[in-house]
């Protein structure tokens, strides 16, 4: 009986679907139901008229993103910083995870693990204050040290050239622990049998890393990379807003699409235009993630996300 067998085969999946229901229900309610709000990007929204009552205005809300000469700067900064962050965090995250896995003394390992993740627990506002405490012109500790060594104050907050570096350091400081922990969880999950075998073969540590650890980490790396691709046209608002502060002199190297939109719309609170900006960002991110996934499928099908 083909029919009953196929029913039975279908039936066997039911418990799995049931397991997925709470999560899917949440995504449906929290993420899909409000998507009617996407139309606000194409409307002249007023609170009184509501989402559907406001008049359609086509692409007018999108215009402001492209009229200004800033468009190129903010696109370059958003993509450039994200690429640099992804690269540095991935490389350092993997390296630190491997180092941590080397530490056999449990108490020591615990201390390191705790320390590395500490900055991740801190909110960006606080990070902003901290950076000031370090780099403030007269009050900062760095300039204090420079002065005591007979040097001159460096005007960190008004010199563009330092900021790509500062932002990279701050971001790495705060986020690298997060990547490290994810990679560490994977590495520990491999178990020791591969390494024991390699050791018997007389492989050096570096050879083990290259031939065992990195290949085994590939799925995790691809997962984190794909996720990062999905956010490549969004910037960490807190980082770019709180750390350099609203400092016009630095905008050439600190303004990203999120801070631009926030600053440009802060005064008027135009919901239509900010919806348009976020729609545009989402669109680019979707394109990026589809592209990356497509590339992954060509390169190594089993590691592609979908």
């Amino acid at each position: 009986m083909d029919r009953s067998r196929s029913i039975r085969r279908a039936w066997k999946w039911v418990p799995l679907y049931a397991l997925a229901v709470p999560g899917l229900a949440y995504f449906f309610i929290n993420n899909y139901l409000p998507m009617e709000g996407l139309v606000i990007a194409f409307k002249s929204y007023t609170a009184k008229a509501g989402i559907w009552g406001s008049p359609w205005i086509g692409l007018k809300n999108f215009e402001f993103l492209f009229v200004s000469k800033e468009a190129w700067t903010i696109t370059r900064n958003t993509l450039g910083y994200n690429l640099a962050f992804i690269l540095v965090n991935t490389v350092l995250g993997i390296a630190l995870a491997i180092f941590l896995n080397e530490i056999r003394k449990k108490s020591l390992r615990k201390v390191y693990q705790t320390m590395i993740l500490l900055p991740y627990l801190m909110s960006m506002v606080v990070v902003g204050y901290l950076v000031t405490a370090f780099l403030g012109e007269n009050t900062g500790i760095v300039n204090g040290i420079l002065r005591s060594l007979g040097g001159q104050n460096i005007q960190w907050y008004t010199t563009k050239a330092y900021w790509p570096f500062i932002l990279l350091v701050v971001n790495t400081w705060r986020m690298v622990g997060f990547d490290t922990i994810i990679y560490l969880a994977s590495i520990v999950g491999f178990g020791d049998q591969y390494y024991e075998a390699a050791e018997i073969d007389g492989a050096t540590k570096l050879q083990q890393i290259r031939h065992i650890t990195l290949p085994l980490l590939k799925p995790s790396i691809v997962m984190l990379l794909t996720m990062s691709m999905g956010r490549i046209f969004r910037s960490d608002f807190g980082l770019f807003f709180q750390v350099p502060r609203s400092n016009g002199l630095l905008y050439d190297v600190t303004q990203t699409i999120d801070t631009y939109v926030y600053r440009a719309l802060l005064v008027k609170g135009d919901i239509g235009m900010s919806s348009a900006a976020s729609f545009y960002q989402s669109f680019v991110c979707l394109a990026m993630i589809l592209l990356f996934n497509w590339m992954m499928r060509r390169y190594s099908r089993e590691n592609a996300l979908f």
Partner: protein
Amino acid sequence: MDRNHRVFRGFSNAVLALVSLAALLPFWLLISASLTEETTAVKQGFRFLPQVFSTEAYRFMASSWVLFGRAYLISIIVTTLGIAIGIAVTLPLGYVIAREGLPGRKVLTFLIIFTMMFNGGLVATYLMYTVTFHIKDTLWALIVPNMVTNAFFVIMIKNYFQYSIPKELFEATRIDGASEFAMFTRIAAPLAKPIAATLALMTGVSYWNDWMNGLYYLDNQKLYGIQNLLNAIATSTRYLAQGAGVGVRLPTETVRMAAAVIAVLPIMIAYPFFQEYFVRGITMGGVKE
């Protein structure tokens, strides 16, 4: 252990010690800053040891201990519930979309990832939660909107089940005739401890640090968690300090630092205890030790 290994281990130790120090120093500075006398701090800057010691900032906050106590309590309740619900929702979903051969799996995965790109925006989400679900001014307002789970967490779990657990384990159980449900509860869930610990940590941090939900969905300020209270202090100190009629002069700069310390302290204290479980989870997760 050969020389090669000892060198590598020594190198690892050195790097990690440096990194740990770099991670810790700013915290030290923060605490020192919060204990510095205001005028000195502004004139001479912050040091790793306060030049002029003062607990002024903390005394200001202690004068409103009812506010802080209640806010702490709410944050703890919300974070605990949030972690529990988050794991209960995320773990099974991640497991399901990791299950090879499940019809519709790719579509589900895409639908989940799609939520990372597009969302309806503040207005539509707010309307739905307040008008349809009447969530406003309840504890649920702090737990449910945008916080329970997200695509990143689900994919992280999916990835773990797919790559970090040997497929043979499932095959063996399947041959024994276990149902798909039993495979989740008997095999997958117990093996998921390390990733569940990671998830709990991430969910916990985001709940503890969240103030957006409180900002949007609470009008009743009695329900503010610690982050909302601190956000209120951070955004209001400017107004407060300039308000001549408030009857007290506020140490603006150091109060901010003290507020930051107060927000981070519980999570710093809780984290090592949690770490205990976290490390054990990771060790147990290894299929073979």
